C-alpha cells in the first residue's frame, strides 16, 4: 500500500493505493493519526487506486473517522470503485460516509 499526501488549504488529501488488509491497515491508521496530530483534522481519502480492502481496513477507516470527529474534523472518502465500493456498500459504511465522485467534491464536502 502506498499513501501519497497532499495539503489543500487546511485539509489533507491522502491518495491510498494498493491494498488495505491485515498486514498494512495499521500503516494507514498511523498516517492519519500523524495528520491529525499535525492539526489536519479534515482528511480526504482518495481510493481510486485502492483495489482491495478487508474488515481490518474498514476498522482502520472507522477508527480514523472517529478520531477526526473527536477533534472537530471529518474524514471524507472519494473515488472508490470495484470490490472496495462493494465492501462499503455491503457493510452500509457507504451510508455512514457520503461517497464522493471526485477529490474536489470531497474537499467541498457535505
Amino acid at each position, binding site marked *: 500500500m502506498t499513501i501519497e499526501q497532499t495539503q489543500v488549504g487546511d485539509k489533507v488529501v491522502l491518495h491510498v493505493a494498493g491494498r488495505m488488509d*491485515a*498486514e498494512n491497515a495499521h500503516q494507514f491508521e498511523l498516517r492519519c493519526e500523524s495528520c491529525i496530530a499535525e492539526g489536519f483534522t479534515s482528511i480526504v481519502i482518495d481510493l481510486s487506486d485502492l483495489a482491495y480492502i*478487508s*474488515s*481490518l481496513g474498514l476498522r482502520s477507516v*472507522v477508527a480514523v473517522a472517529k478520531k477526526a470527529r473527536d477533534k472537530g474534523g471529518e474524514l471524507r472518502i472519494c473515488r472508490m470503485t470495484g*470490490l472496495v465500493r462493494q465492501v462499503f456498500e*455491503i457493510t452500509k459504511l457507504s451510508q*455512514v460516509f457520503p461517497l464522493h465522485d471526485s477529490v474536489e467534491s470531497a474537499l467541498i464536502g457535505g
Partner: protein
Amino acid sequence: MARTESLSPVTEFVRKGAREANLPESQMRELELVIEEVLMNVSRYSYPEGAPGMVTITYSVPASGKLAVEVCDQGIEFNPLTATPPDLTLDLKQRPIGSMGILLLKSFAQSLTYRREQGWNRLTLAISANL
C-alpha cells in the same frame, strides 16, 4: 501458525486452487478477502492473544468453476455462522470499530458450513465462478 505474516503464503496456496478450478481472475480478490476474513476470525476468536495456534487449510475442486476450501484450527470453539450480525443502521458515533469480518465472509462465499469435531473447528467455504 495464526499470524498475519502467514496470510500471503496461504492466499497464494488458495489462489493455486482457484486456478485449478478455473475461477476467473476477476474473482481472485473476492477469494482473497474471504480467506483473510476466515483467518482473522481464527486469530481473534479461536486462539487467545499471544498464544501460538495451528491452522490447516486444504482445498478441493469438486467441478470446474467450483472451489471448496476447508480451514481447520484447534482453538476455542467458535462458529462464525452463529455470531451476532452487526447493526448496520448505526451512525459513525455508535458504530463499533470492528465486527464487519463475518459479514464480509458470508457475503462473498457462496456457501459456508461449520462443524466442531474432536477439538477442531472446521469451516468449509465454497466459491463458484460468477456467471
